[in-house]
């Protein structure tokens, strides 16, 4: 196979990651009839990875701080990002699907890179401190606590736990959109931070 | 009154990776398995890499105990002995030729995770 065929342009003008090359396609370890794809971005992403950690719900993120390797449980598969710009993705149908999924991630990488360049991204220490304080109780305190069940969960506590694991989205709590709950929304912004709120499905 | 055997309900899995005679591992495995079976343990043995030579029929060692005959006794005592197909066929023991002792099955490495789940102890020799 011609190596040129395996090189895909994701964005014609990108702040950081513009292209991805497919390095290998192998049978997937955990899913029959699916593949695991190993890819390489055209740029290193090591400086962006720590900031990416807060962009996703904690339950979907596995960050190996010692090696700066981030594994995301997204799009029904595991996507592992290495600082060198290498990417591995399992449970994938084919390389075209892999490129589609990775384009989404690359977009967020580029956006985060711009935030870091523009100085609008929180420092790593602040992020670590925030994440260590994050638990279901801290989130529950910022919810309406009415157990109205409109979100589909039995209690607000159950909703808080599923938010952390990434199994529900903030937008499902319609109560939060009510004008008398603005203080709750502010509370959530304090506890989660605006980026994580967005990745949890909050639409301001 | 029948005393319940020590090992009743428990399973020991032994994974072997070395061939017979050059090293003593096959012999050691036989002795461990035999004792365990006598004590009522369930015994499963997975033969991997060069251990796929162990249950070959028609072995005729000159001064040493016949490893295949010992493993035949283990089968008779109820041991579940399986051989990795990839390693066996690489070494020329093809399924169609029926190279092994009766009761020894040619399967694949996926037996290992299943056996690990079911076992109380797993040891590797090699």
């Amino acid at each position, binding site marked *: 196979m011609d190596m040129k065929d395996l090189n895909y342009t994701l964005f014609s003008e990108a702040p950081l990651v513009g292209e991805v090359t497919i390095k*290998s396609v192998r049978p997937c370890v955990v899913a029959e009839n699916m593949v695991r794809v190993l890819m390489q971005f055209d740029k290193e992403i090591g400086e962006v990875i720590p900031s990416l950690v807060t962009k996703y719900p904690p339950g979907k993120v596995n960050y190996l701080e010692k090696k700066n390797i981030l594994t995301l449980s997204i799009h029904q598969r595991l996507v592992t990002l290495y600082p060198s710009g*290498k990417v591995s993705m399992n449970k994938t149908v084919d390389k075209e699907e892999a490129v589609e999924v990775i384009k989404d991630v690359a977009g967020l990488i580029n956006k985060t890179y711009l935030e870091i360049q523009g100085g609008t991204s929180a420092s790593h220490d602040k992020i670590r401190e925030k994440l260590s304080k994050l638990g279901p109780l801290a989130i529950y305190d910022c919810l309406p606590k009415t157990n109205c069940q409109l979100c589909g969960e039995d209690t607000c506590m159950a909703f808080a736990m599923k938010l952390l694991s990434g199994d529900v989205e903030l937008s499902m709590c319609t109560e939060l959109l009510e004008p008398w709950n603005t203080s709750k929304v502010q509370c959530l912004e304090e506890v989660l931070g605006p980026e994580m709120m967005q990745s949890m499905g909050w639409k301001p | 009154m029948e005393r319940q055997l020590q090992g009743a309900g428990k399973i020991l899995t032994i994974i072997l*990776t070395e061939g017979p005679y050059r090293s003593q591992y096959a012999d050691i495995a036989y002795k461990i398995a035999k004792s365990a079976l006598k004590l009522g343990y369930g015994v499963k043995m997975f033969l991997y890499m060069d251990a796929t030579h162990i249950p070959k029929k028609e072995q005729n060692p000159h001064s040493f105990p016949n490893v295949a005959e010992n493993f035949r006794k283990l089968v008779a005592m109820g041991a579940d002995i399986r051989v990795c197909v990839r390693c066996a066929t690489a070494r020329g023991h093809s399924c169609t030729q029926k190279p092994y002792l009766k009761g020894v099955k040619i399967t694949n490495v996926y037996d290992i*995770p299943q056996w*690990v789940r079911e076992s*109380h102890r*797993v040891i590797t020799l090699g």
Partner: protein
Amino acid sequence: MDHVLIIIDKAPYGWEDAFSGFYVAIACLNRELDADVLLIGDGVYAALEGQKPEETIKYPSVEDLTYLIFPEGSLFVHRKSMEDRGIVEDDLVEAAQYVDDEELYEIIKSRTDGTAFLKI
């Protein structure tokens, strides 16, 4: 038992053990049994980056298998074994995590009850 730690102490290509050991790890992960690999002694060579055996001795690459383990399973490389052989972290595949003796002790201690240790 609900977890497997596969210990490899032989260098790849010289012995089949590294290849076969990773194979067992992959089979376990394939059947949803937690599996990690520990490279110790000469086994640390299995995590070197840039292996190209297909071009020379026509053997399948063990390095490729290291990419199939992570992130579902961890790849631990024994630090002292690396130092004894003059290997540094930069020489290894990205997914490899070096562990010193204290960390190794903690890993083993925390898992002993349900872990099957398989030295392949």
